[in-house]
Structure formats: structure tokens, C-alpha cells
């Protein structure tokens, strides 16, 4: 008895996570749970008394995390057993009751018995319902998770004209199922884990066994295991914790909220990381060119897709170098501009009080301000901002003679070009680099732009995403993969899977089957 009280004291004072077995004393165990959760109001404990049998039964669940109807159904099932079945009326001891509930009355799909107190919290907070029976040092845990979640809806950030309208939600199980529906193959493996010392966030790695590269997979798992933080509130946390190079403007992991994009990347041998609580799924390893591809490239015919892809690369270059080249040409290389254009530009700049560089910087900063304001505001007001910003500011600034019309054209073209990059995080890094390049251009002209571009290319080539060179398949050069890098060749030409690491050529399964038939 003394030992028991001591244990009780310990469990009350010490961290509730320290494992201790269940006592079997119902009141004791319930007290432990209540205390562990700080008497939170969403913890629901319901007591029942059997008609014939002695033992008290308690049903414990978290409101909101569980499906109410499910729980009610479960309780009514469990409690009504006595009246409906012959067997039920005979029950008397605690053990018999417990076993009966476990074997017969428990309807939920997933159930298990727990003997450890610490496991109780995990189960409760995952939306399970616990059943404790007086005198039994064991708890029944049934999966009743549910409650209000956002339904699957249309993608908000990665919109496509053609293709699936589904996008991920905040619920990890729904997200996993969305991908599994697209790849009906037993080789699609999902490995769960919990990350975040405080948040205990559900994280899952998904890959296609046999296609995903083992080394990359190993590396990813190691990196995930090394994560030691309190909270994982979004996949962005994981992205920043596992990316190889921290000091780079370029994103080295890809994220998407489109299940078809995840499916496509899994089939290319990449690995997806699902995080509970966010619709954005990470994809690793990421290469530079991935950020300019969209799923729609594969849904449209190859000629259209190729042209649009090339257009995107052009826009990338414009949004990166546009204002810089303009400033460099105006300040250093006037002889490069055709004469009529030069006279035109000169007449526009007549009376503009600022140097071209200051003008460019001013316009770029204004543009960024308008953009940021537009994002943070609710959408109806956001449009007002863009009207005021774009129309009024631009027009008025030109009429007042503070900026030249040509500069407004260059800056707005740059801005619009930056929106064509499908991946928002890549567009962000270009947004930042643009300023650096403009500054260099203002001091060193085209020479500076060339030097900086060289440095950027060198940097890009040095980057790696989980050991895979960032610039692949251009550097290292892979002739086979060129079919789907800058251009998108017809689907029946792409018979070989992209190589992420230096591995032997892997034919696509359909192609292998076809060849097998011929032989």
C-alpha cells in the first residue's frame, strides 16, 4: 500500500510522460489523466455502472478531436451488451467485463490495449477514445478520431486549368489517402513518425519502394531523426531543419499542395514528407528545374508545354536581370542602345530628378510594398491596393516627372514575369536577388551583372538537395533527362526515369513490360 501511494505521489508531481504502469484503481488513473492534462475542459470522462456487474467503467475522450457520433455509438454499444446478449448478463468480474468490451462490443476499426500511463495521453490526443474498467490495470484504446476538419477543396496557391482540382487539407490521413488513390500500388510505402518535443506532430514519409533512391531515403530519415525542436507547426519547419545549405537564396526543397504533383514526383523517385496540420507537402530531393515545372505541363500536349516552359525560363531571366540590365545600359552602355530608342529614353528622362539607379530602386521597393500589402489584406481590399498602387501611384509618378515611363514599364514587366514562376518560394528568392543585381549593375554595369551571374551559377552548381546536385540534369549533364528539363518532349519518348543520383538507367515499368513481351 505504501508503495502504491508513493507511486501515486510520484506520478502526480513528476512529469506525466515518465512511464508508469496503470494502477488498476480507476479513480487513481482518472486522476492521473486529469492532472496530466491540467483539467482541460475538452477532456471528457463519462462513468458507467453495469447493471449486473460491479465494476465501474469510464470512457475518456477529447472533445473536438473525436467524432461525436462515433463515440456515442461506441458507448451505447458497450453499455447495451448486457441487455441484448445472454452472455452479457452473466458478466460479473472486472476482467470479464474488460474482455467482453474488448472482444465484442468495440466497434471501431483500430483498437489496442494500453498498459502504460504515458501511452494514454498520446492516444487521447490523437483522437482515440479510452475505456478503463475498475480493477483492470489496462486501458482499451479505440480510434474514434474525427471532429471538424476542412474538407478537400480546390488548390489555392497552385492553380491549374486542366487537371485535378483536389488539394491537400490539414489532415495527414486525408492527404495520404489522396495520394494513395492516385497510385494503387503496394509499393507505395508510408512511414510514420512523430516530431516536435512539445507538439508531437504526426509526420509521414511517403515513397515508392523500388523507385525511390535508397541513399536519398536513408539520408532523409537520418536528417528527420536528428530534428530536435519543440514544435513543428508547418512543413516549413522541417524544410528549414533538413535543408543542407542554410545560407542560400534558393529553396532546396520543393513543396506542393497538389496530390497529383506529389504522385508525379513519387513516380520520378522522389520522397514526400507529409506533416499534420498543413496542406503543404514537402518533396525531396529538389532540383532547380523542378521549380519551373508544373503538373499541367504533362497534361497539355508537348508542343504547348515546351513553349510555355521556355516562356517561364525567359520570364525567370527577365524578373532576375530586367531592371539590372536596364540600369546598366542607361548608365554605362548608352552606345548599346539603338539610336532612336536612346533619343526616346533620353527625352523621357529629361527632367527626372533621380539617377536611373535610384529610380529603379524606388520603383522596385514601391512594387514590393504594394505586393506585400496586397497579400496581407483580405482579398476584396487587396484588389483596391493593387489599383491604388499600380494605377494611381504609377500614373501619378510619371506625370509628376519623378520617374520615367520606361522605368515603370521595366519594373512592371519584371513584376509580372516573377509571377510566372510556378513555385512561390523560387519566385521569392528571385525577388530578393533582383535587388542585389540592380545594385551591382548600378556600380559596375554589365560587367558586374556578368560577374554576379557567374557567381550565382557557381553557387547553384555547388548546392545539393539530399546529396543530389541542385543543377542536375544540366550539371552533371544527363542527356536522357534533357527530354524533360528545359523542354517537355512527347510522353512516349520519356522511357527512362530521371536519375536523381548517379545510378544505372532505370526503364519505366511499362516500357520494360513492353520489351519483355517482344522478346
Amino acid at each position, binding site marked *: 500500500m505504501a508503495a502504491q501511494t508513493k507511486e501515486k505521489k510520484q506520478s502526480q508531481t513528476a512529469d506525466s510522460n515518465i512511464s508508469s504502469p496503470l494502477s488498476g484503481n480507476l479513480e487513481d488513473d482518472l486522476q492521473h489523466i486529469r492532472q496530466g492534462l491540467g483539467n482541460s475542459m475538452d477532456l471528457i470522462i463519462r462513468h458507467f455502472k453495469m447493471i449486473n456487474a460491479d465494476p465501474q467503467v469510464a470512457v475518456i475522450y477529447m472533445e473536438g478531436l473525436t467524432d461525436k457520433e462515433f463515440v456515442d455509438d461506441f458507448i451505447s454499444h458497450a453499455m447495451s451488451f448486457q441487455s441484448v446478449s445472454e452472455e452479457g448478463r452473466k458478466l460479473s468480474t472486472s476482467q470479464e467485463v474488460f474482455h467482453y468490451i474488448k472482444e465484442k462490443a468495440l466497434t471501431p476499426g483500430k483498437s489496442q490495449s494500453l498498459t502504460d500511463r504515458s501511452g494514454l495521453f498520446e492516444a487521447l490526443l490523437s483522437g482515440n477514445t479510452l475505456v478503463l474498467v475498475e480493477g483492470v490495470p489496462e486501458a482499451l484504446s479505440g480510434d474514434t478520431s474525427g471532429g471538424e476538419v476542412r474538407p478537400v477543396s480546390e488548390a489555392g496557391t497552385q492553380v491549374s486549368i486542366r487537371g485535378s482540382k483536389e488539394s491537400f487539407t490539414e489532415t495527414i490521413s486525408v492527404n495520404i489517402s489522396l495520394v494513395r488513390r492516385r497510385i494503387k500500388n503496394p509499393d507505395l510505402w508510408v512511414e510514420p513518425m512523430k516530431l516536435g518535443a512539445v507538439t508531437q506532430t504526426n509526420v509521414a514519409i511517403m515513397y515508392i519502394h523500388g523507385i525511390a533512391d535508397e541513399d536519398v531515403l536513408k539520408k532523409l530519415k537520418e536528417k528527420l531523426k536528428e530534428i530536435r525542436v519543440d514544435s513543428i507547426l508547418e512543413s516549413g519547419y522541417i524544410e528549414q531543419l533538413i535543408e543542407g545549405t542554410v545560407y542560400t537564396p534558393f529553396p532546396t526543397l520543393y513543396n506542393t499542395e497538389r496530390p497529383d504533383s506529389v504522385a508525379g514526383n513519387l513516380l520520378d523517385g522522389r520522397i514526400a514528407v507529409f506533416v499534420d496540420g498543413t496542406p503543404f507537402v514537402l518533396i525531396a530531393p529538389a532540383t532547380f528545374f523542378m521549380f519551373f515545372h508544373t503538373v499541367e505541363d504533362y497534361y497539355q500536349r508537348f508542343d504547348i508545354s515546351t513553349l510555355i516552359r521556355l516562356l517561364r525560363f525567359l520570364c525567370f531571366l527577365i524578373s532576375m536581370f530586367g531592371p539590372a540590365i536596364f540600369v546598366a545600359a542607361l548608365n554605362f552602355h548608352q552606345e548599346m542602345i539603338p539610336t532612336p530608342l*536612346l*533619343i*526616346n529614353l*533620353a527625352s523621357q*528622362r*529629361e527632367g*527626372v530628378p533621380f539617377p536611373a539607379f535610384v529610380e529603379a530602386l524606388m520603383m522596385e521597393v514601391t512594387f514590393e510594398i504594394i505586393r506585400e500589402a496586397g497579400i496581407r489584406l483580405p482579398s476584396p481590399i487587396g484588389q483596391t491596393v493593387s489599383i491604388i498602387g499600380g494605377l494611381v501611384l504609377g500614373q501619378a509618378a510619371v506625370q509628376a516627372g519623378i520617374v520615367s*515611363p520606361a522605368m515603370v514599364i521595366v519594373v512592371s514587366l519584371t513584376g509580372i514575369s516573377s509571377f510566372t514562376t510556378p513555385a512561390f518560394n523560387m519566385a521569392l528568392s528571385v525577388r530578393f536577388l533582383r535587388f542585389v543585381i540592380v545594385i551591382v549593375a548600378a556600380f*559596375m554595369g554589365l560587367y558586374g551583372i556578368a560577374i554576379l551571374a557567374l557567381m550565382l551559377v557557381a553557387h547553384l552548381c555547388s548546392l545539393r538537395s539530399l546529396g543530389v546536385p541542385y543543377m542536375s540534369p544540366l550539371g552533371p549533364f544527363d542527356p536522357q533527362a534533357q527530354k524533360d528539363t528545359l523542354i517537355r518532349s512527347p510522353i512516349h519518348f520519356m522511357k527512362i526515369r530521371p536519375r536523381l543520383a548517379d545510378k544505372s538507367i532505370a526503364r519505366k515499368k511499362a516500357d520494360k513490360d513492353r520489351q519483355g513481351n517482344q522478346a
Partner: protein
Amino acid sequence: MKTKHLSVLVLFVLLSLNLAGCWNSRELNELAIVSGIGIDRVMDTGKLRVTFQVVNPSATTTTQGASTNQSPISIYTVNDRTVFGALRRASKQATRQLFFAHAQLLVIGESLAEGGMKDVLDIFERSHELRLNTTVLVSRDTDAESILKVLLPQESVPSIGLGKKAENTSKVWGETPQVSVFETIKEITGGGGFTISGVRMLGNVEEGQKKASLEQTKAETSILISGQAVFNKGKLMNWIDGPEARGAQWILDKIYETNLNLDSGDQAKAIAVNVVFSKTKIKVEMRDGLPIFHIRINEEGNLNETQSAVNLSQNHEIRKLEAEMEKLTKKEVQEAFQAAQKAECDYFNLGNEFKRVNPAEWKKVEKDWNQIFAKGTLELQVHAFIRATGMRVTPLKAPE
């Protein structure tokens, strides 16, 4: 230790970046864009009189609602011994630094051309501020300064307009060549003769430089491309015009397009044929110490107008017209050739062709080539072809 080395390296790289690069950053509105340069000789002093035509950007037609009453160009005139001296001395007059990279036109004054102009062209090749693709014209019966002062209709910058005039007329009329500074330098250093288009002014400068002269449908003063200035040993020798000039272009294979008015039966010059293709092939051989120039011209044209009642559906009529074309071309070429022989100046560069095929022989005759050239004979072959006769077959005919 390693990071220290690295930071030193980075520092060196960054410092060296500053050493190179474009230190001469200039704002566009601190530059005076020079559109044309004119060079005259100041009599008696040996100095050059350099004229700059500078664009006034705010007054050009490209500006939205240009409301200034300024002239689209300003003229600065400077006297100095050297061209570069004049370029820099101009800073005393100009509000901004002169910027020469966009000079479209170089006008050589007739007085300077007569005395030899090779000296003033050195700077165009030597200085990075000037360009070699600038069009060269020689002022005729006037000085370069006046030519640059006159405003032109349509083109707000006269130098650009004059450059376009020279280009257009050489392309569709074929009497005058469009020559760049680069070509001129090449010809001068090549030692042979060469020709440059002339430019003439009708009217007077005082009216022509006023904006008001453009307010009437026919400008008070106009500038036109006129004839070819023939240079021998870098000095202006004489002018050639009309058929002679076109004949020279024919020998030089510089006819892109031109018009021939052909005789037809009873009516003289009543049929216009637009020559759209012409190719000249030259062979030179020496016989008994005298050169024979085999010139073969292939030309092709479209009949564009007829005022004579010729039956164009008949093949033999066309053949007749072709023969007429050949006759006319031959006449012009022969005239041009004889004029050159008379002047004892091989401005067709026929010597060059001879040098190419027979360098050893050339060495012997090089010294007095012009005299030998003057005694040479011309073997001319012209082959003409009429490709089309337009959208009508029979000529217009009034009922009798």
C-alpha cells in the same frame, strides 16, 4: 585559419572587381547625344572647323506632347587644329558632355575634301568615343556646317534623316553609294580612288535652320543627295552625276534596285523597268602590257509602266525591250568607264581584282596603275531579263 585565408581571398577578389569594370557611369540626362559631325577647313589658318549637331531630347517628336518651342537640335561650332581638340573644346559651349557613340552622320566639307581628308579620319578609328559605321557625305557647293544646321521635315533629327536619305536613294535609285567611315578609311589606305555621295543644299541656311521653315508644306530650304564625289589619292578630284554616276555603281556591283526608262519604237523613254536584281562580274587580264576589263552584268527587272502601245503578250516584244535594257545599261557603264579613264583614276577598284588574280604582275604595274588603267579596254557584256510585266497586259487605249 582556413576561414582567415578565405576571407583574405574574398577581399582580394572584391578589391579587384572595383579596379576593373565600368567606372565611367553617366546618367542619360547628363549627356548631349551628338547626332552628326561636320568638318570644314578654315581657310588660311590650317585649323579645322568642327560642327556638332546635338539632339535636344525634350524637343524630339518621340516625347509625348512635346510642347517646348526649342529646336530638336542644337549646333555647336568649334575651331581647333585637331578633331579631338574640337570635341573637348566644345565643352565651353555645350551644357552637357558630348556623347559621340550615336553620331549618325559625318559631313566632310568640300574645301576639306579638296585638300585631302585622310588626317581627320584617324580619330574615328583610334578613339573609343566614335564609331566606324557612321555614314559619310561630302558637302557640295556649300560647307558642312550649313548642311548640319538645316532642319528636315518628318525626321526630327536631321542627321538621322540624311543618313536615311543616303541609304534609300542608294537602294532604290542607285546613283549614289552609301559609304561608312570604315569603308572610307579602307579605301583611302587601299590607295585607289573611290567615291562618296555628295549632299547639296537648296535655299539658304538662315531660313533652313528655323523651325518655322517646317511649318509650310514645302520646306524653305532642303537638303538632297546629289552626285558622287570622286576621290583620287584621298583628295576630291571631281564630281560625277546622272548616268555616269549610275554606271559607276553598276561597275562596282552596288545596284540594288533602279529604274530604266526604255525607248519603244516611236516613243523615246516611254517604258519604265524597275531593275530588281543586278550582279556584276569582273575579270581583268593583261595583254601586251595593257589591261582588258571583262565586265559581265546580269540584270533582271519588272516592267512597271508603259506609255507606248507595245503588245506585251508577245514574246518578241519583250525580247526587244530586254535588248533595249542592255543597250541603255551598256551606254551608262561605258560613259562611266570613259570618264574614269579620262580622269586617269580607277575609282572602280578594278586594280584590286587584278591584284587578286595576279599578284606578281600587279607588283610591276602598281606604281602607275592609273595611267595603265586609262589605256585599258573594256569588254562589256550585259544580259537583261524582264521577269514580269505587271498586273495588266495591254496598255491603256482610248477608243477611237
